[in-house]
């Protein structure tokens, strides 16, 4: 196995497997099937793949109609256009009817890179988690993406799955990924001094930071919060009580995303020191994914610094 894979690549691969397992699975795209990897499904099941052209709103409306006719629908485009442009259709058609549509949105976050700010979504988790009944998932690597997508397709009801463009390191393998349960945070590293709750591609950054901090004698717990909604409140409350401080990190705005979701839980259950790593109320720009992560403060080094801030409080 390669040591890196983009979560969208995992999506393309698992779609081929799921297509064989679920004869009622249909896949839709809005002229981005090469990029979102739904084209992999089309190669094997062309009769169950529908391109809707550059018309995301109608794609999610039609996805609703297909779902209300007994289909499991995975409908993909870039996260910006799924969660942003089609938000109200996802809210009023998919969400309100609790239709079995999986909004599998790729190219989320700053790691879209060179395409620049118009394509870099930092708002999608915030938007999607406000829709009642919507499950919101943000896998951290290729292996967990495959496993979570399997669970998403197996469950009834609407889901938003956030997928990335850039290749990210594996830290799950096929066996360990099987431990992952939708709706349950996954503790990747035990620790008693501080808890780092990470989501998506920031999980690998969190693990790097935890290793460096361990050298200095700071014992970090690291949780992969792959499911933003329903949020695993128990694991957050336990972390707050046992470690006293939490750092959240996400490739998303700190307004409304994982950090906010964690704050909602701690503020009402077990107030504790919080530090949020994420996009800080600003648009992005063109650049390489790694350079952008550094400039906008979403790297292991930013997590490392944040933990030190927490430890001084």
């Amino acid at each position: 196995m390669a040591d890196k894979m983009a979560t969208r690549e995992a999506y393309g691969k698992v779609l081929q497997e799921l297509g064989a397992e679920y004869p009622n699975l249909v896949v839709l795209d809005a002229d981005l099937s090469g990029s979102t990897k739904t084209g992999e499904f089309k190669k094997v099941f062309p009769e169950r793949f529908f391109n809707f052209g550059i018309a995301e709103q109608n794609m999610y409306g039609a996805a609703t109609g297909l779902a209300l006719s007994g289909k499991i629908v995975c409908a993909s485009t870039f996260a910006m256009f799924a969660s942003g442009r089609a938000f109200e259709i996802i809210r009023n058609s998919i969400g309100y009817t609790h239709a079995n549509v999986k909004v599998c949105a790729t190219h989320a976050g700053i790691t879209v890179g060179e395409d620049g700010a118009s394509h870099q979504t930092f708002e999608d988790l915030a938007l999607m988690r406000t829709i009642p009944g919507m499950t919101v998932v943000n896998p951290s690597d290729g292996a967990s993406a495959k496993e979570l997508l399997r669970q998403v397709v197996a469950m009834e009801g609407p889901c938003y799955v956030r997928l990335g463009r850039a290749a990210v390191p594996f830290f799950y393998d096929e066996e360990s990924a099987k431990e992952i349960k939708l709706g349950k945070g996954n503790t990747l590293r035990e620790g008693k001094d501080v808890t780092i709750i990470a989501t998506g591609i920031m999980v690998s950054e969190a693990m790097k930071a935890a290793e460096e901090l361990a050298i200095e004698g700071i014992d970090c717990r690291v949780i992969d919060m792959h499911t933003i909604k329903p949020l695993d409140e128990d694991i957050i409350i336990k972390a707050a009580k046992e470690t006293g401080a939490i750092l959240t990190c996400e490739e998303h705005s700190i307004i409304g995303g994982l950090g906010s979701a964690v704050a909602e839980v701690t503020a009402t259950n077990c107030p504790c020191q919080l530090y949020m790593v994420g996009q800080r109320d600003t648009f992005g720009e063109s650049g390489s994914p790694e350079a952008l992560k550094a400039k906008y403060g979403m790297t292991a080094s930013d997590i490392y610094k944040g933990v030190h801030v927490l430890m001084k409080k």
Partner: protein
Amino acid sequence: MDYKQFEELASKVRVDIIKSVFEAGSGHPGGSLSCADIMTALYFKEMNIDPENPLMEDRDRLVLSKGHACPAQYAALAERGYFPKEELKTLRKLGSRLQGHAKMGLVPGIEMSTGSLGQGFSVSVGMALANKLDNKEGRVYAILGDGELQEGIVWEAAMSASHYHLDNLCAVVDWNGLQIDGKNDDVMTVRPIEDKFRAFGFNVISINGHDFAEIFDAFDQARACKGQPTVIVASTHKGHGVSFMEDQAGWHGKAPNEEQAKQAVEELGGEW
């Protein structure tokens, strides 16, 4: 064919629209009255449906894309036996199955939750596509408002219906010429409606939307058309059947008071 029975049914539907909107104290009588004949034609003849078995496998489905006209749909469904007519009084009240814009899953016969314009038509495209995929007989009908045609998603949906040759999809535009802020022509021109749909690959049929002979004939033509979706552009009058509501934009979203409601019911030949 004798259309008198349909005209009588449509009058009953109109009476129930007035009564339920009056009881609710709010709602959309104008656009409900304008599509009452089309609604009656669909539920009492055109559609293959069974009120005893509302989820029948190969049934036809209606999506009311102009969701604010749901008083017409509720009245027709109740008249057809989907739920007790008594329940129409609960329209828009707390805890009612009859939401101000219809929600599916509450009363039988509502196939889609609508209210946000344009979305119902888009959803009907997905339903028609699913029926094609599964080789199902069921046809899908969508009723759209004329003002609704201003929504971009309508044209995205139209493009896709044509692209996928959805000849099992029949849209009906309730062309009453008025929307909340006034005449379509003043607010935002939607003309030429027929040419627009034709350009998007539709089989276009223009009719008087209050004439049952023309309505049924149009549905027959739609069913006979193969390889492309049909749109029936039905010229109607907002508030049709009630003298003081007819062609008045002000009655788009306003409930009659008791005196007005009584007069309306009387004009429609109903009992108060």
